[in-house]
């Protein structure tokens, strides 16, 4: 079931939560809505589920306009941020709920319900917990019950609101992989909301990056990470270093170093900011070329195979972050307090008039 979101807007009082949102989601796609808190991503998800009404715009499931159809008829599976399991029901009853409340005509028999529930509980590896109550389960188990409950009604669309938000890092990673496999097996169109960029890039087919009620960029994880189209996206997807300087005839000048920025070849003396990812910064011990920036290593932290460096530029006193592999780090034999030369390998220039962070 494809989903078309067409010029959806929503305000809460004077606060504009969503401003003219357009997204087209293909059948079977797994899409992440990514953004900081207050960016409107959860509101959008709730509008798709019918739990919130849009001020304008329409939502189509396939070719059917469901904008004015009530939640219970939309056939969406919704997994809530804090699971929203029925506290007074056992795991079995939670999963069976969607089938049990069907009108008599379409309700499966007791035996069929039981088979279906156990099938789902097997899927989420919780058959042994059928008689437990939600309070007796761990966070990860509750999350899986919530998923099984949502899947029990055979939804056409699966919506997940911060599905792994309340879990610890290890469980989160496991569940994320598991969700991806589940999605690949079921091929059900899914949208999940997250503020964790790593999660979005790791799981989703496509990522929708939202900010202040607007869409900043839509694309595959690789696209949005490698080619952010705005400073916001650059900043939001991972760490970034800023090189403030002057843009003149396709070159960004800053102090006594300059870098090519060919896409701005006709720019004349404009202030601009270059964005560089920490892993796109190369470190040299000797000044090999003129466009290196001299800096002092302030801190070194080694996390597994990656070494994070915190550097302070000697010219502008600004701090920079760099990441290198452990091999390179060992080869260079870097030490805290050492003077090195820093050079951006890849940089993207934005002119601040167009964007503000």
């Amino acid at each position, binding site marked *: 079931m494809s989903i078309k979101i067409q010029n959806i807007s929503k305000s809460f009082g004077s606060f504009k939560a969503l401003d003219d949102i357009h997204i087209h989601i293909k059948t079977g796609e797994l899409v992440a809505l990514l953004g900081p808190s207050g960016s409107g991503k959860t509101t959008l998800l709730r509008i798709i*589920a*019918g*739990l919130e009404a849009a001020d304008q715009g329409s939502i189509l499931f396939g070719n059917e306009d469901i904008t004015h159809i*009530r*939640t*219970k*008829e*939309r*056939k*969406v*599976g*919704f997994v*809530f941020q*804090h699971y*929203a*399991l*029925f*506290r*007074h029901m056992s795991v079995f009853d939670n999963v069976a*709920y*969607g089938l049990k*409340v*069907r009108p008599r005509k379409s309700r499966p028999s007791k035996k069929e319900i039981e088979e279906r529930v156990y099938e789902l509980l097997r899927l989420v590896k919780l058959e042994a917990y059928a008689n437990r109550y939600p309070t007796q389960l761990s966070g990860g188990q509750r999350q899986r019950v919530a998923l099984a*409950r*949502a899947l*029990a*009604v055979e939804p056409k669309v699966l919506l997940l609101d911060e599905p792994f938000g309340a879990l610890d890092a290890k469980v989160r990673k496991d569940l994320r992989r598991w969700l991806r496999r589940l999605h690949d097996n079921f091929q059900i169109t899914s949208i999940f909301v997250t503020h964790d960029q790593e999660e979005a890039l790791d799981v989703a087919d496509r990522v929708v990056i939202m900010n202040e009620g607007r869409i900043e960029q839509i694309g595959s994880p690789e696209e949005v990470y490698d080619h952010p189209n705005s400073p916001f996206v650059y900043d939001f997807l991972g760490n970034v270093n800023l090189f403030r300087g002057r843009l003149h005839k396709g070159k960004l000048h800053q102090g006594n170093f300059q870098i090519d920025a060919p896409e701005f070849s006709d720019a004349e003396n404009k202030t601009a900011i270059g964005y560089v990812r920490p892993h796109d910064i190369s470190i040299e011990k000797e000044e090999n070329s003129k466009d290196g920036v001299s800096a002092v290593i302030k801190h070194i932290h080694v996390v597994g195979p990656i070494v994070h460096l915190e550097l302070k530029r000697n010219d502008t006193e600004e701090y920079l972050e760099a990441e290198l592999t452990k091999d390179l780090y060992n080869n260079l034999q870097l030490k805290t307090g050492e003077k090195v030369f820093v050079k951006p390998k890849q940089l993207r220039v934005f002119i601040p008039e167009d964007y503000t962070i």
Partner: protein
Amino acid sequence: MAGYIPMQQTNPPLESSRSTTEPRLVRFFLIAIVIVFLSLFLVLPLIAIFVKAFDKGIDVYFASIRHPDALAAIKLTLIVALIIVPLNAIFGIAAAWLVSKFDFKGKNILITIIDLPFAVSPVIAGLVFVLLFGTHGFLGPWLFEHDIKIIFAVPGIVLATLFVTLPFVARELIPLMQAQGSAEEEASFTLGANGWKTFLFVTLPKIKWGLLYGVILCNARSIGEFGAVSVVSGHIRGLTNTMPLHIEILYNEYQFSAAFAVASLMSILAIVTLVVKNFIEWKTKTNK
């Protein structure tokens, strides 16, 4: 005048370590004060009721309870409670639902109005109905023409009691439902349940102990209400006398044993209510 009593006084069990407990003498003194106070003002009067009730022997006791006027008063009291409690339960759930699930202008005013009967003296509550429905009241002439009796009749008693007990269930449920939020109800909707099924299978089980607690308080109050009912009832023996009014009449006629016999019956009702209330409190705690 009963105030708002929160559903649970959550006193986390204090770890009794040396550094946090009071000296032995202070503890002894505090406990003594509580015991003396409770015995003087609660236990002693309760014993006195029963002593006085059986003052003239068991026969007089049962005779005064079996007296037609007493039986009529008991019957009326129970009928009023039977009408009041379901009405208040329905109103309480509706009001709590409205307040906790929707945002609208004037919500705070609504909550304040629900609290009004707690703030107004019962006598005034009774007088309001006399002013409205009495012979010289606002709607009196119209009611007289249509031969509808409200004041000095059962409808008046029901109305006055309803007014006085109005906040009990609502007051109990509003904070409870506000704290619980509506995520589970939303989950129920996404799973295809309609509003009624959602209420029946999701909301009601969540609030049942709070609801029962409110119902019990409401019941206790409707049985025991004196002031408001006294104003509107007219004290017609065998017709519009509730138990508290009947006790007052007997007492004023110096029939002390009979008065205390009926009073003892009410005390038993109250004690049963308290026991049930405690059971529910215990049950709510274990359910958490």
